[in-house]
């Protein structure tokens, strides 16, 4: 906070109330500490719970740190074939969606950035407005469309519907990146005999790698998180994805086996945690260039 840094020397000069500055500093740290506790404790608690036996979970007072951590819950989750099925299906759908969305978004974003036309403006407004459409409201109609296409109960249906909801944001974000690339570079390549698609692949895409990473990560996260499409378009257990599978299986049948639920949660959230740690920098960059400007 550059603002906090700025008042400290000022206070030192203006008054000798050094203690006031210290009190202020401590107060700020305290507030931040409470926020961090709120944000991080649940994750800690989820992880800790997954290492406890069901007996320890129901102890009062609760064990803040597991005294005898057990891996039994993890073994149970991996022995249970269902969880692996959900996990792999989720991976399949998320990777598929990320690929489809990235291609469609790069093409559309480039077109909107370079070939401005009246139709382009309409598309731009259309994409923006989709952000407001409630997914719950279109589920039935979507179900009927996929039924007519004979795609009900396929992972392809999930890939298509998730792409449909992730393409707008990704397109607008990557367009922001393309807008920043000077046109002169492309014109030079054109004179050198580079084709239109060649310009996109050899010049524009390499220059907007952070943007590509950003839309890739955002799309993957949103697909990984899907629940509504999966509970509507998927009927059989073998095609089910993570969120739908967890909510149906671990709440219905095992009925509040919290140790198991916590373990499933940790494994289900882990890929996202890894993504965040690796790509955090690009996510901030991506938002700076794209969403923030728009």
């Amino acid at each position, binding site marked *: *906070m*550059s*603002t*906090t840094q*700025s*008042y400290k020397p*000022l206070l030192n000069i203006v008054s000798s109330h050094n203690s006031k500055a210290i009190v202020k500093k401590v107060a700020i740290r305290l507030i931040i500490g409470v*926020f*961090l506790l709120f*944000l991080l404790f*649940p994750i800690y608690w*989820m992880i800790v719970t997954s290492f406890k036996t069901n007996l320890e979970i*129901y102890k*009062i*007072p609760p064990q803040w740190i597991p005294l005898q951590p057990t891996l039994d819950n993890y073994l149970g989750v991996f022995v249970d074939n269902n969880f692996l099925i959900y996990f792999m299906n989720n991976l399949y759908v998320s990777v598929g969606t990320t690929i*489809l969305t990235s*291609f*469609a978004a790069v*093409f559309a974003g*480039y*077109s*909107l950035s*370079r070939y401005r*036309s009246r*139709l*382009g403006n309409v*598309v731009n407004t*259309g*994409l923006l407005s*989709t*952000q407001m*459409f*409630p*997914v*719950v*409201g*279109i589920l*039935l109609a*979507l179900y*009927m*469309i996929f039924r007519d296409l004979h795609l009900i109960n396929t992972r392809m249906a999930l890939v298509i*519907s998730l*792409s449909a909801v992730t393409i*707008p944001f990704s397109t607008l974000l990557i367009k922001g990146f393309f807008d920043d690339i000077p046109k002169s570079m492309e014109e030079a390549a054109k004179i050198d005999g580079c084709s*239109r698609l060649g310009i996109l692949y050899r010049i524009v895409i390499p220059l907007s790698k952070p943007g590509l990473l950003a839309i890739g990560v955002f799309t993957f996260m949103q697909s*990984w*998180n899907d*629940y509504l499409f999966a509970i509507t378009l998927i009927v059989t257990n073998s095609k089910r994805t*993570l*969120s739908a599978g*967890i*909510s149906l299986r671990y709440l219905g049948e095992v009925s509040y086996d919290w140790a198991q639920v*916590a373990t499933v949660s940790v494994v*289900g959230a882990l890929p*996202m*945690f890894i993504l965040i740690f690796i790509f*955090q920098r690009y996510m*901030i960059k991506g938002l*700076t260039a794209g969403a*923030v400007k728009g």
Partner: protein
Amino acid sequence: MNVITNKSKLYDKLFGLALLGPAVLIVGGFVFLPVFQSVLISFQDFKLARGTSSYPWIGLDNYKLLWEQGDLQHAFWITFSFMLMVVIIILVFSMILSLFFNQGKSSDRTMRSLILLSWGTPTVIVALLWSWMFQAQYGIINYVLLKLGLISESISFLAHPDTALGSVAVAAIWRQLPFMFLMLLSGLQGIPKEMYEAARIDGVNSVQSFFYITLPFLRNVIRASVLISIITSFKQFPLFWVMTGGGPMRSTETLAILTYRNAFVNMNFGIGAAVATSWLAALVLFSIIYNRVFKEASY
């Protein structure tokens, strides 16, 4: 020469259109088309139980029924209060957090990633996690509140009409806060540092520089991120469905839950579509007003 440039211009135009193709096709076919169909369904007596393939047009009857039963107004009110709680709290919290973490120390990078974790947690898992923590007998929240003497007996937060909505809001705040934090942080990093230095030399204090430098610079970011949180809160479904299912006594029956319950539990798609359409209309109207108000404020 003229012919060639004209031809090349035409090619440019066609190429530009072709690039739009995949996105327009997918978004058009699987977002706009179903939205259009839902609006049509909302004017039909569309019940699965009828078992026919054609459904009679009944004009505004679905809307009338919803309005007379008071379901729509109730759900609007619940959704609105939920949205207001969530958005105001995350705006204030994430503003404070982002100001603090904009100091640019390298050790902050790990901290920033840690803050983002809750946003990466899948919503259904968030719902399960908070259900577990809010649990009446063994939940950690009840334990801590009892120990601190803030409550005298344990509360079943999710099973009580007075506390259920607030409890779901806590989970929603937990999940959505990092996104706003990320947006504000990236906005803050776009403010030139010299601005603050110049202001400091001129004797401007930190509160003044926040109001006269930081906020004006962040205007667009705040506008965009607040709108996104408003829409996200309005659309929230998995948290409610998993944590409360709309209960107890309909105290958490939001528009999303009302839509889903009518369409997929009661199998009355006409009513479900009518809820969704009214809600969509409200959101569109709201964003138009919202953007206009904010734009005018800049002059």
